[in-house]
């Protein structure tokens, strides 16, 4: 898992609210037994036609899409199924951070487990960001803030909160399993005392 501390880059905005995991990665791409190449199927039904060719005019098919490390989505991002294929597909496509005003529980957990940073901003900040498609912003996990310079030259610094353990692991690229593994004595004791 690649560590993530501070990331600067252009944002890509998907205005739609309630972007569910079936949109992020449709079920027909879930039959593989690994996650290799799954990024090619990201948002397949939005982005690709029936023959798998890119639909002209879709923002995700613009050359900049693969160069934008930060995806900003509408409210309630990642709702629906528990498929971890969703954050893997986003990572595979090139995103490292997803920003919304609400992120679904299972998707958020899955993202943190695989190294995709989920960021939840206040509604008005999120709304402002939704109007800044293509602008460069900085997401700083160390400081837990998003820094944005608006067109009129004003710099905004918007704080976000994140589970401290998730932050710790994401910043160091740590596998959470090791924490669980170190609790072996407690697990044995629990099993013996039942």
């Amino acid at each position: 898992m690649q560590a993530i501390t501070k990331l600067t880059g252009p944002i890509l905005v998907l205005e739609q609210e309630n972007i569910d995991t079936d949109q992020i990665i449709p079920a027909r791409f879930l039959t593989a037994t690994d996650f290799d190449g799954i990024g090619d199927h990201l948002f397949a039904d939005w982005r690709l036609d029936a023959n798998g060719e890119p639909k002209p005019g879709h923002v995700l098919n613009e050359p900049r899409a693969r160069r934008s490390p930060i995806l900003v989505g509408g409210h309630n991002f990642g709702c629906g199924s528990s498929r971890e294929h969703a954050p893997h597909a986003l990572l595979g496509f090139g995103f490292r951070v997803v920003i919304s005003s609400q992120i679904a529980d299972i998707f958020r957990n899955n993202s943190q487990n695989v190294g995709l940073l989920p960021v939840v901003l206040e509604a008005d900040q999120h709304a402002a960001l939704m109007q800044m498609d293509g602008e460069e912003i900085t997401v700083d996990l160390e400081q837990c803030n998003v820094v944005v310079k608006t067109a009129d030259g004003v710099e905004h610094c918007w704080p976000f909160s994140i589970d401290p353990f998730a932050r710790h692991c994401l910043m160091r690229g740590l596998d959470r399993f090791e924490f669980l593994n170190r609790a072996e004595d407690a697990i044995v004791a629990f099993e013996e005392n039942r």
Partner: protein
Amino acid sequence: MSAAESLFDKLWNSHLVQAQSESTPAIIYIDLHLVHEVTSPQGFDLLREKGIGVRRPERTLATLDHSTPTLPPDANGKRPYYTEQAHRQVQTLRDNCKEYGIELHDWDSPYRGIVHVMGPEMGATQPGMTIVCGDSHTSTHGAFGALAFGIGTTEVGHVLAKQCLLQSKPKSMRINVNGRLPENVTAKDLALNIIRYLGMNGGTGFVIEYAGEAVRSLDMEGRMTLCNLTIEAGARAGMIAPDETTINYLRGRPKAPQGEDFEQAASCWLQLASDEGAVFDNEMTLEASIMRPSITYGTDPGMSLDIGEPVPRAVSKSHEKALQYMGFQGGQQMNERNVDVVFIGSCTNGRLSDLRAAANVLSGRRVAEHVRMLVVPGSESVRRQAESEGLHEIFSTAGAEWRLPGCSMCLAMNGDLVAAGETAVSTSNRNFEGRQGSGSRTLLASPETAAASAVMGRVAGVADLQSLENS
């Protein structure tokens, strides 16, 4: 005396291996880990990578459901898998279960079924348990007073390896549903009403306990339907306190305790109900008697209306996009919409009572000429019982296809598809864009409504069917 605890508090506290701290999540013990072919392969890879085994194979139960064909094998015994990759995925689970000593309900098992149908049927799902599965509809098992929720594949690996999960404690919500549901209003309608009220994200961050007379009056299959759909309001887990209905359902099931052990367990289970004075982060009360048979019109399960109401006018860009996708105009009557496909099945509504309800509507009637109707039992047990009651003949006579158990058209990854532009009335759980196939349009409803729509060939409730026939 200790502080009053909710059902959720009791389950959380009794499974704490290590408490949550300011900088680390809690470690909770998992009593039952359900496994299927789609979200497990990379979880087993974690074991190989770490060179370890499955910690508690006896607490792990596997089935084939998501990518399995629902048509029978050919003359040579070859099953019609949608893709070779789907077949390989099934074989991978078979290999993993063999290697790690996990009980798998394969094609030859009399119990094989959708993971959330099979677990309860076998009595593997029990009150007071923590239950996880790499599937968001694991919330189903909360109907028994278990803490049950969906997890991702990394966590599947964690549970296989350590039988534990890292979790931060969610907030709690209690939804009281007072009064009785009117006749013809089902658990599915109740759930759609609740999701409409909460919105598809109103439960995010919460575990929901359902209470009140209308909930208590549901049988176990109805309770499972209600808890199943909890995730569609954004809450990972829904739960209902165990009572005599729960105990009577479980008595005699193969994996439940037997004899005196069962009676002892049952008396413990009855202690799990939320204490009087238990505190919830959010609590609300709804009235059952005003609820009506419902159907969705949009692209999330919160976008539903009472059958007979017009489609609402768009109030936002997203709403407008949903209506456009579905081919609806604000103000339009739903019953003008032709139906192409009807699907009865899934972990939401693929149980025996669901099939009986659909058969009851179809008996002596015919599916409209232009409608393709699939009936897919949730498990081999459901199939067996339905066939012993002759339900399959009612479906076949009416013109519906009677299939083999599996998830089938609910998520359409096994080749059971709704074509682009087609409208399906479906008893499943998600009406997302393309959920039942690229470009498919899904209307979620109860088995009764789905069957009535199949007969009428357009969106209809049972009452519409009856009033037409009586006129």
